[in-house]
């Protein structure tokens, strides 16, 4: 596969770019933030996503979706990142859809139409500690009646309290730390014993702390195979990670462009500060880092779309690199903006906050560098 976008992909990018810039720019984000919106995003915008086909971008054509791949999802995510557009796209249309693609027809029919319509939101309930450790799932699902009873707690469930359904990873066998013995469940928001406490995050997204107090689900709530949930979870994780990486390419590029623009206009000591060589070199270095991040993310997406054996390695590298580059971009952005970069009035600080959340989502750069090392055999 050539590492350039096809004409169709370029068209999609133009569409997504125009749409986010006009319908969900940073002012849109500010509006929902400042109203203290309990969801942290606009349901109206989510409907508009659906109208453009974005919500079903990864849903197979046979199921009514666009049947596209990670590259296309990433194109949308990059524009989301560039504009800080708040939406359930990453969790619902990317991570959850990848899981549901492995579900049986009944479940697909139950959830895909709502996603396609921009009406359904799905939360991913995996994390149990403050750091990402998917194999350390301790939440248990014990056989009970026609199905299972789930007990445990989950954290950092982005948009969890706004979700119609949660995908919950629980242990049906094996010990904490093992990848075998996990099972994934679709748990309805109204299930008895399910409670949530919403917490606003630094980037104004809202994540939930979830309690599962003997939540009874039917056997048909299982996504994929009982005890074989790691296969489903892996899909969620790879898609969520590469998706977050793509969004960070957008966040980092948005911050960088804003900063470079500022360097070209701001005057200090009677000179435009972009004339200062020390800043020029840092700018050029940053550009190289962001270009590298863009490349490794595209590579990881391609390999996932090809079903390549090395996809997981590249996804880890992509999440790590995009995280490091985006983090550099927002740090340089705030520093180069100087005092006004510290004010809430300027946008650059919002990019710094978003970067932080995305870096943490599904494993930070250090976690993924560690995985790269392990996968590379040392």
């Amino acid at each position, binding site marked *: 596969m050539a590492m350039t976008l096809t004409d169709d992909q370029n068209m999609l990018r133009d569409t997504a770019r125009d749409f986010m810039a006009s319908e969900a720019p940073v002012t849109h984000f500010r509006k929902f933030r400042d109203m203290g919106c309990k969801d942290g995003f606009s349901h109206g915008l989510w409907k508009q996503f659906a109208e453009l086909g974005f919500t079903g971008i990864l849903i197979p054509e046979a199921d009514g979706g666009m049947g596209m791949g990670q590259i296309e999802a990433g194109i949308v995510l990059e524009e989301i990142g560039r504009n800080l557009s708040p939406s359930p796209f990453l969790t619902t249309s990317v991570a959850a859809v990848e899981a549901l693609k492995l579900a049986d027809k009944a479940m697909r029919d139950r959830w895909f139409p709502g996603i396609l319509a921009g009406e359904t939101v799905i939360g991913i309930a995996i994390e149990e500690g403050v750091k990402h450790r998917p194999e350390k799932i301790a939440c248990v699902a014990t056989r009970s009646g026609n199905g299972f009873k789930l007990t445990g707690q989950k954290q950092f469930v982005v948009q969890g309290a706004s979700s119609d359904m949660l995908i919950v990873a629980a242990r049906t066998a094996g010990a904490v730390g093992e990848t075998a013995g996990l099972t994934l469940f679709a748990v309805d928001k109204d299930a008895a014993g399910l409670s949530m406490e919403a917490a606003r*995050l630094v980037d104004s997204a809202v994540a939930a702390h979830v309690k599962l107090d003997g939540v009874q689900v039917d056997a048909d709530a299982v996504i994929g195979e009982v005890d074989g949930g790691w296969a489903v979870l892996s899909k969620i994780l790879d898609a969520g990670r590469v998706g977050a990486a793509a969004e960070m390419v957008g966040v980092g590029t948005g911050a960088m462009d804003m900063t470079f623009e500022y360097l070209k206009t701001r005057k200090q000591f009677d000179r435009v500060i972009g004339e200062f060589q020390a800043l020029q070199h840092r700018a050029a270095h940053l550009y190289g880092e962001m270009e590298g991040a863009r490349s490794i993310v595209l590579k990881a997406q391609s390999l996932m779309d090809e079903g390549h054996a090395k996809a997981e390695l590249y996804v880890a590298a992509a999440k790590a690199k995009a995280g490091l580059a985006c983090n550099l971009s927002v740090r340089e952005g*705030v520093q180069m903006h100087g005092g006004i970069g510290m004010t809430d009035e300027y946008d650059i600080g919002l990019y710094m906050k978003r970067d932080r959340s995305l870096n943490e989502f599904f494993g930070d750069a250090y976690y993924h560098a560690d995985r790269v090392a392990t996968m590379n055999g040392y």
Partner: protein
Amino acid sequence: MSDRETFRAEARAWLEENCPAEMRIPAKGDEDVCWGGRNFVFQSEAQKVWLERCVAKGYTVPDWPKAYGGAGLSPQETKILRQEMAKLGCRSPLNSFGIWMLGPALLKFGTEEQKVHYMGQIARGEIRWCQGYSEPGSGSDLVSMQTFGEDKGDHWVVNGQKIWTSYADKADWIFCLVRTDKTNKYQGISFLLFDMETAGVSTKPIKLISGNSPFCETFFDNVVVPKHQIVGEINRGWDVAKYLLGHEREMISGMGGDGGVTSIGAAMKATLAEESVLRAQMALFDVDNLTFRAHGERFMDEWKTGKAHPAYSNLMKYVGTELNKKRNELVMSIGGSQALEWESERANGGSKARNWLRTKANSIEGGTSEVMLNVVSKRILEMPGG
């Protein structure tokens, strides 16, 4: 017993007798700190008593001369007093930009009358000061400032705008750089003092990315400032400002962290045990942190004995603030998703995230890292060029 030991014993006894028990537990946050001033509301009787007793003893500013409200202690005695306060956990009786910044400038540039009057007020916590340096558009290039004081014989009429004035909305007086000669860039600035209640002064808090508003925009609309309210000579305020910036840098360079060498890694042992690469970052940070503590110690020892280069505080400011930013990045990484929470009680109202964002200003305020590097390069390393 040596003089030092005698002094230590006396100081200890005084502190034990006079520092209320409530003032020996750590301040919880900014609201627990005594800033003094006309409008200050004491948070407790203990806070008030502690201030009053220290004022009476001269211990709000122990190393200032007694004539100006201090206790006239030697640097050695001051250090001993601080050590004893630290041992007992005594809170600072009074925090103040007057103590940290204006006082030292007055001591060097003020008239005897000014020292007695203003330093006395500062020492007694009667007047809370703010600093008017930066202007919109001036940033690192301080001398490009536009706020102008028109000469009206026995007074100036000041018009203009300042920005980044810390707690201007809570301050009683301001020390302020004002252009008094438009024809001379450096030697056309005066260092003026005036009451924030003077007609024509107004302030507007600036909301920061941390969600807090420690800074203001401050506006001057035909503000009348009598000529005697100047520190140093007319048009030579830049000398005062530079001197004072040096003090500010020393203060900010101390911000390299927790003031000690305690590793944040230890408290997060369980997390780090599972995060091998993050642990390595923390380890390399701890090497830098121990280094900075030792560096600061060496710098202070050389500074006190006059061996440090006059521009060395710029280096310390650069190193310390960059280190503190790095520290807070690690705190956020180790804190994980919980550190992201912005309002919850679980996350202490988002204190980690807010602190992290606040530290981003460290390398901007009081001279940016870029300006510090310029100064180190030009003045210490004597690199060529403009």
